[in-house]
């Protein structure tokens, strides 16, 4: 990916990268002094301000792969790629801020499987926990492998040492500092990322001669580039981003599913110091999202203007870096890439541990022993699991290179669950009548439909890769099936849904007592 650029890294660039890595490690170790309980470890002791959470949500959402592949897609498909950060984020983040955040906050859950489990029972909870855990752990291994390749190509470090260097740095600050260290190192990483990517953008603009010159240069290249500066493409386009898919599939379903159910997002938000900070953090993240395409997508378009004949679009950004950046600044940009990588690794690590403790260890231990495990046990196990997971990720990571198809299959499998899961979540929150029979049938048949549509989608939808349409229609399907089955089967009791449905009085002390009791009572798990 960056091999051509390794030779141009000077000693000062390498010194900047090494300094940055050491600084992040020291910061993480420093925050370990604030971790005394499992609440401190998993939810930062509910002490985080909105701006830190907002930055962390945005930087965790962007991996180094996105910085390269996002620019590569912009090179290939144009500005339409920016929809993922604009229309595909903002309305969903507003909805999550004012609907789901207060809901999670007041109902006392800390993972999506936990909420779905309390609402629909153990089967749905464990199914969701397994899906999320599979996704998070596989992403952890992928990110570790990406880090190793990245370090190999810019510093010449063998991939074995690259993996274990990343394991050591991220592992140490995540194990010691928990969510506090993850979020506060993410703040630094956001600044580094924005400064590095901003410098690249400004220099490339200066080289081209400004926006008008950029548009003229690209569009003059031929009719196939005529839509490169349009956000909305015709419904009949063969690119993956027709406007109707962007509006219905991405804007309504996928983005809402992502921000309302992604453990990395939920966990950060629940670490806020108050409900206001939790809501404000999502809105602040939405402000920052405005800048993300400017820093990631536009370099892809400037690369198209400067180097129109690249065979591999993913080489757009590395080519710009090699051509435009002076010594020193190049080190900063590479530090930005590494920041993006580390922020993703620490998020997947911390979130995987939380799901195992919250949805595996705690309910199973309560069920077996009759009492909930102590806070001390959860903290110690959380730290041990963090070590185990990152070491396991380090061991699995080299295999990712040989099993790329497995990774792709897992990604596809994960996307199949998004529409049906959102349907369950929406109905669970807003319709008291929804029951576990409806949920299980809606989820399983919805996922089955997703699989079938994935096989024959090209015969039904105009786009070559119709994942946006599939997400929308499976959401609609699961919404209808879950509602119908629930309507014709026995409703859940008032006690089962108390404090878990919008409109039930979650601030009522009696409801809160029911919620607390559920956490500790085995029969409800």
């Amino acid at each position, binding site marked *: 990916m960056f091999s051509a650029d390794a030779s141009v890294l000077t000693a000062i660039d390498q010194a900047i990268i090494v300094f940055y890595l050491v600084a992040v490690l020291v910061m993480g170790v420093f925050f370990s002094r604030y971790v005394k309980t499992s609440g401190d470890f998993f939810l930062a002791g509910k002490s985080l301000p909105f701006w830190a959470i907002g930055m962390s949500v945005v930087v965790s959402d962007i991996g180094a792969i996105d910085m390269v592949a996002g620019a590569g897609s912009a090179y290939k498909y144009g500005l339409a790629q920016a929809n993922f950060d604009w229309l595909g984020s903002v309305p969903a983040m507003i909805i999550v801020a004012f609907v789901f955040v207060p809901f999670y906050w007041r109902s006392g859950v800390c993972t999506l499987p936990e909420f779905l489990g309390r609402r629909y029972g153990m089967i749905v909870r464990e199914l969701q926990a397994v899906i999320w855990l599979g996704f998070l752990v596989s992403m952890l291994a992928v990110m570790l492998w990406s880090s190793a390749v990245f370090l190999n190509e810019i510093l010449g470090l063998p991939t074995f040492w690259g993996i274990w260097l990343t394991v050591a740095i991220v592992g140490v600050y995540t194990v010691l500092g928990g969510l506090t260290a993850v979020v506060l190192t993410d703040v630094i990483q956001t600044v580094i990322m924005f400064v590095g990517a901003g410098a690249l953008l400004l220099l490339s603009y200066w080289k081209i001669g400004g926006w008008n010159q950029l548009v003229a240069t690209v569009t003059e290249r031929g009719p196939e580039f005529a839509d490169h500066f349009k956000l909305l493409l015709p*419904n009949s386009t063969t690119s993956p981003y027709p406007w109707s898919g962007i509006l219905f599939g991405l*804007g309504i379903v996928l983005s809402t599913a992502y921000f309302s159910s992604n453990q990395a997002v939920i966990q950060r938000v629940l670490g806020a110091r108050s409900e206001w900070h939790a809501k404000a953090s999502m809105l602040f993240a939405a402000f920052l999202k405005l800048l993300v395409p400017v820093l990631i997508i536009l370099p892809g378009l400037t690369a198209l203007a400067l180097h129109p004949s690249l065979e591999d679009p993913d080489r757009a950004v590395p080519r710009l870096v090699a051509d435009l950046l002076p010594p020193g600044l190049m080190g900063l940009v590479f530090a930005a890439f590494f920041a993006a990588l580390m922020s993703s690794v620490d998020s997947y690590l911390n979130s995987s541990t939380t799901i195992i403790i919250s949805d595996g260890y705690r309910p199973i231990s309560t069920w077996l022993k009759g009492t909930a495990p102590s806070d001390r046990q959860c903290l110690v196990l959380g730290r041990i699991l963090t070590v185990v997971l990152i070491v396991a990720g380090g061991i699995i990571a080299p295999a990712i290179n040989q099993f790329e198809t497995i990774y792709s299959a897992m990604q596809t499998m994960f996307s199949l669950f998004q529409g049906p899961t959102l349907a369950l979540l929406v109905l669970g929150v807003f319709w008291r009548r929804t029951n576990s029979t409806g949920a299980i049938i809606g989820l399983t048949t919805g996922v089955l439909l997703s699989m079938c549509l994935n096989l024959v989608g090209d015969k039904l939808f105009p786009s070559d890769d119709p994942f946006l349409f599939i997400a929308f229609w499976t959401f609609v399907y699961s919404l209808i099936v879950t509602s119908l089955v629930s309507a014709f089967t026995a409703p859940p009791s008032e006690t089962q849904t108390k404090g878990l449905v919008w409109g039930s009085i979650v601030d009522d002390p009696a409801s809160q007592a029911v919620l607390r009791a559920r956490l500790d009572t085995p029969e409800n798990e």
Partner: protein
Amino acid sequence: MESLTNTIESVLVRILKPFLDPLHGFMDQLPPSMWRISVCLFLLLGALWTLFLSRESVFRGCKTQSKWADLRIWVCVLIVPYLLIYLIF
């Protein structure tokens, strides 16, 4: 695997195509101005509903009741650049 795919294809495509094709045909005929209006309406509606939230729920957990802490105002400010972007591009 191939026979399974063929079976799924013959069943699903036969059932869904008569329903989806007219929808896509309708979408194909809409002019670009309608795409833009639909997206801007979605953004506007996605933001404006927050204006109907109660003051108590917006400020819950906030020490001050000042204007800068009113998240409804945040949303209104937030949505403006996004609307401009979709109106221009």
